[in-house]
């Protein structure tokens, strides 16, 4: 199984979620995040003083999927989250050793 971590633009969450459901992803978890990368955040003025908002709001989603589904999932997220503008984000893939569904005790693939 693979753990796929994607950092995306907040307003893309719904589209990504729907796209994932369509390709058969059974579940995912999202977290509010802030990030920096190429996109550096902008300089604002507050009460006459300039300041840089170094980090930009992002959503970090993670989903664990079977090895064979993983590539589809990466493509799907990439397609759904792409706005062709800086700050679109990243997708990382990691190996998962084991998975367990708390409710039923089912493990690994069946647990996803």
């Amino acid at each position, binding site marked *: 199984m693979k753990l796929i971590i994607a950092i995306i633009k907040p307003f893309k969450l719904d589209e990504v979620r729907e796209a994932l459901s369509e390709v058969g992803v059974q579940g995912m978890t999202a977290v*509010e995040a*802030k990030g920096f990368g190429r996109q550096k955040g902008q300089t*604002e*003025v*507050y*009460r*006459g*003083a*300039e*300041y840089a908002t170094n980090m930009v*709001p992002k959503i970090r989603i993670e989903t664990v999927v079977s090895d064979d589904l993983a590539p589809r999932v990466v493509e799907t997220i990439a397609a759904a989250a792409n706005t062709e503008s800086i700050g679109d984000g990243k997708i990382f893939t990691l190996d998962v050793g084991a998975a367990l569904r708390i409710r039923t005790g089912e493990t690994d693939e069946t647990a996803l």
Partner: protein
Amino acid sequence: MNKFTIPAIGFAALALAEPAFAQEAAEAAAEAVDPASVVSGGTAYILNTLLFMIGGFLVMWMAAGFAMLEAGLVRSKNVSMQCLKNIGLYSTAGIMFWVTGYNLMYTDVASWIGTFGPYAMQGVGEADLDTGYSVASDWFFQMVFCATTASIVSGTIAERVKIWPFLIFVVVLTGFIYPITGSWEWGAGWLDQRGFSDFAGSTLVHSVGGWAALAGALIIGPRLGRYADGKVNVFPGSSIPLATLGTFILWLGWFGFNGASQLAMGTITDVSDVSKIFVNTNMAAAAGVVVAIAMTQLLYKKIDITMALNGALAGLVAITAEPLTPSVPMALLIGGIGGAIVVFAVPMLDKLKIDDVVGAIPVHLLAGIWGTMIVPLTNSDATYGVQALGVVSIGAFAFAASAVVWFALKLTIGVRPTEEIEMGGMDHAEVGVEAYPEFARA
């Protein structure tokens, strides 16, 4: 009661037919002797007292305005503390103004100071007819002004002062400093005799609070990391809607602040003047907002809401020294320049590394000076020289006295928390209650 000599008040009615200035109230009412009519006198007494009560509760409400404005402009880790300071200072001010304040300010003022000791409040059913209003209503109205002065201080030095030194400062400010400078003018002291003119307190209330705040800011120093390595670090306020609410509350309260400073509504002339004061007060605030909006747009390409809010308050402070005599265009001018002062002064203070969390120094001190100095433009009874004399003398005393107290506190119990506590926030260390315990910080 039985001493009740009819003539007394009717004359007050006439006597107050001309615009009454704060310091004149006493004499005016005193002179009051027309063998004509009691009833109108009785009615005038009731209406004057009612004006003080309505004005009083409106100004009391300003304490909530300061609390919300400051709660909105500090970081969330210090919001509970700011709320605590505000309810604490209002309570302390009320008690101290009774313990020493009122008498130092108003009772037998010997040129620069009154009498020491608690105020003997009127008894049940008692009414001092010579004044033309209930002295308790007057005490209440004057008390909330005193509390306002303290509210101004809490905002500037927020996020870095421990609760106890702060409250001790408030004790001295409201029990001694404010009443003493107040006595010079509204207590009919030496400044009043020179003809200084400060209708509702641009100098006596707002500048005094501003001077106390400035002394504090200088002696206490800026918040940790505020001016680290040569650049100004911005600590955005935690809740703009609360700051906006606070500003609207203050705006509302100001109708009581300026309007009831007419000190009488028992005659057609007085009540008409109170109405005019309402209009000018509102106009000055509106102009302050519009100017701040326009200027921040031009200077920064965006409209900083916190500047617009400060602009409203600066307009209000500016018109407070003379809300009656200006025509509408004059009120707009006076208030608008107040707004401009804020937009320029806020970053200037940062350059001077003076850390004023809510902008109280530009709003209350600088706009207060502006409002006081411009009085002669619309009120021929005032002169620039005497206005300057008042601004300087009151400023000097208020600043010096405040500085002494802040220093004394610094050298004794200490004013600031440890660096670690300040980093972690005062709510955690001194209040023990987070303002927003459930909300994650981004």
